[in-house]
């Protein structure tokens, strides 16, 4: 738990001051938006400041294609809130997204040329359809997947110089990430920032906002927000589960279980677009399937199940990635269950890292052996 120290200033006042400071210091400002609640607030605060100063700022949205329709409506709303102050940077380019729901189609190439008939929706006329960087010197972060989400962000940022990128990261939502980015000041003595190449800097003006601060601002300013939040809230999802993101990667595929109920048309289009969607829908929350929390009955142990999954893994190249990774792990049931999860969810990128430690169940067993 992060320790919070209260000062005699509201988070809203502080955020306004931070944004004003960024406007004072930087000529070029770009706000990254996702259609979620945090970036909605951040974009609104920045746009108001831009409007007050008669300046224009970029709103950057990397369109993953397979997202909620409500997300698209929200981004559209933000891009048109202050049109005179907005530079639309809506990227609809080809890149690869992990697909956790299918082993035969391990990733989706979103906006893939030639597949426009099955795209989730047509490309927008006001969007950017081609990479604005030199493809020869394009940065690839993970050679196994090629140009992925983070690589696109990296390449886009490299096209800019001396630019402030505003990101809606909040410390309470992601303490680990916050610790990682705030270790050192990224710009002058500002700890809520990270330095990047070309004199670019990422700033996090909402870093000290809590969940309730975000919703209060949205309410007070009468802002529109993604309908998905209402659906999820009504459905009784926990606060940490309520999020808008891609629908198919290993951390968000559970959204597929509720998708037909929330957005039937999006689900219908998704079925035609990507393999494995109905698997995600049917088994996204099944303990013996994609949750990988219970051992299927025909296996003696998690290790047995892991070996079977490895043996039958359809993609030889990806299989090697898993084999190499698992060789470094401890050989126990606790670790093997997590390895099974990686295999079932096709997580060759290691986004769901394995907690590599002795099996706590063995410790419990030892305890009972002593006590009984």
């Amino acid at each position, binding site marked *: *738990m992060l320790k919070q120290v209260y000062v005699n200033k509201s988070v809203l006042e502080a955020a306004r001051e931070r944004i004003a400071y960024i406007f004072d210091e930087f000529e070029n400002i770009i706000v990254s938006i996702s259609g979620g609640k945090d970036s909605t607030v951040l974009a609104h605060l920045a746009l108001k400041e831009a409007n007050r100063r008669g300046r224009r700022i970029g709103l950057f949205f990397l369109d993953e294609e397979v997202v909620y329709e409500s997300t698209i409506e929200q981004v559209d709303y933000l891009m048109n809130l202050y049109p005179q102050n907005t530079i639309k940077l809506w990227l609809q380019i080809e890149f690869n997204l992990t697909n956790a729901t299918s082993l035969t189609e391990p990733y989706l190439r979103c906006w893939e040329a030639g597949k426009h008939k099955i795209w989730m929706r047509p490309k927008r006329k006001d969007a950017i359809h081609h990479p604005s960087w030199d493809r020869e010197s394009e940065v690839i972060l993970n050679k196994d997947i090629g140009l992925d989400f983070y690589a696109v962000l990296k390449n886009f940022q490299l096209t800019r110089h001396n630019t402030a990128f505003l990101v809606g990261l909040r410390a309470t939502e992601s303490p680990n990430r916050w610790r990682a980015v705030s270790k050192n000041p990224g710009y002058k003595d500002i700890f809520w920032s990270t330095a990047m190449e070309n004199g670019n800097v990422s700033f996090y003006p909402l870093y000290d906002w809590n969940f*309730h601060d975000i919703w209060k601002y949205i309410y007070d300013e009468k802002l529109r927000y993604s309908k998905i939040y209402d659906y999820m809230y*009504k459905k*009784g999802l*926990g*606060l940490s589960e309520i999020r808008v993101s891609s629908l198919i990667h290993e951390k968000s595929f559970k959204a597929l279980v509720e998708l037909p109920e929330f957005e039937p048309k999006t689900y219908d289009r998704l079925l035609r677009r990507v393999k494995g969607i109905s698997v995600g829908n049917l088994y996204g929350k099944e303990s013996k399937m994609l949750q990988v929390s219970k*051992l299927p009955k025909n296996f*003696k*142990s*998690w290790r047995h199940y892991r070996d079977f999954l490895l043996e039958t893994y359809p993609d030889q190249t990806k299989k090697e990635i898993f084999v190499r990774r698992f060789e470094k792990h401890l050989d126990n*049931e606790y670790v093997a269950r997590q390895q099974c999860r990686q295999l079932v969810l096709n997580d060759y990128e290691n986004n769901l890292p394995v907690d590599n430690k002795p099996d706590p*169940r063995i410790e*419990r*067993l030892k*305890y*009972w*052996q002593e*006590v*009984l």
Partner: protein
Amino acid sequence: MIRIGLSDAEKRDIVQRYIQNHGITNVYAFSWESFHVSFDVDVPIEYYGYKDIIEYKPFYHLLEVIDERSLLVFNECMRTQNRSDLTYNCAHHYCNQTPHKIVFETFPFIEDKDDFMILLDFLDKGKYKGKSFDWSFLHDEDVRAKPRRIIAESIDVGHTAKALQEYEKKKVQLLDGLGNSDPDTIPRNLHVFVGRYKAAHILPGLEYVARNDRFKLPNVTTYKHVERRDYIVIDFPHRRLDFNDFLKTTGMRRVQFLNTGLKVDQHYFRELQHWIGRLEEFYAKASLCE
């Protein structure tokens, strides 16, 4: 306010007085189904079972009707140690809409003092969110406790050398055959196993309680079917919450346990003694006695 250890009559009295003193116009009472209390009040009252708290129909209805003159009563609603449980989260939505909340519990916690935060969350979730238990919180809020003291006594029935041999054999068998099952099933199964050495000590004319109906005796009942009277415990339920419910339902203050002296019996009996110790510590340190 939080009130610990009150009888149904005392709970009714508190609710009545609260309504009179605070200009309450409506009461919404939530109870664990087995411990329902009817309140005789002059304002409209709606009753909800614990399981209703998360249901769509009552949830949206309650969000619409609860206002700052409503009184919410949570009666024996501490049903899980998970502070972030969905039922608690839904209840907090109701609690946010009125300053008037009364929380009744027989015991201040399920297992240990940290559970008390669940009751404080009912009063003000925002204030206690993410905080661990601290004794000072008891004095920051209107908390009173009427200690319900429990005494644990062992009726030693002993065991033979053969019983010990069989016990050890069973233990090894359970450990070897565990497979992927939860290790906690071992003490549960062993505890039931040693019941066979207690059968000869079940006396007619006395009432007993066991985990299941395996003794087939008219004076041995299961935890599900206990009534308000004294029982001698043959074996304990594994979950503390189930035993607390047993104490609440029967009203027992003195727990007598048929103890073979085998390690598993000693373990369960020792756990009960530790729980009683924590309870006494809470009463002593909290200094909230009426």
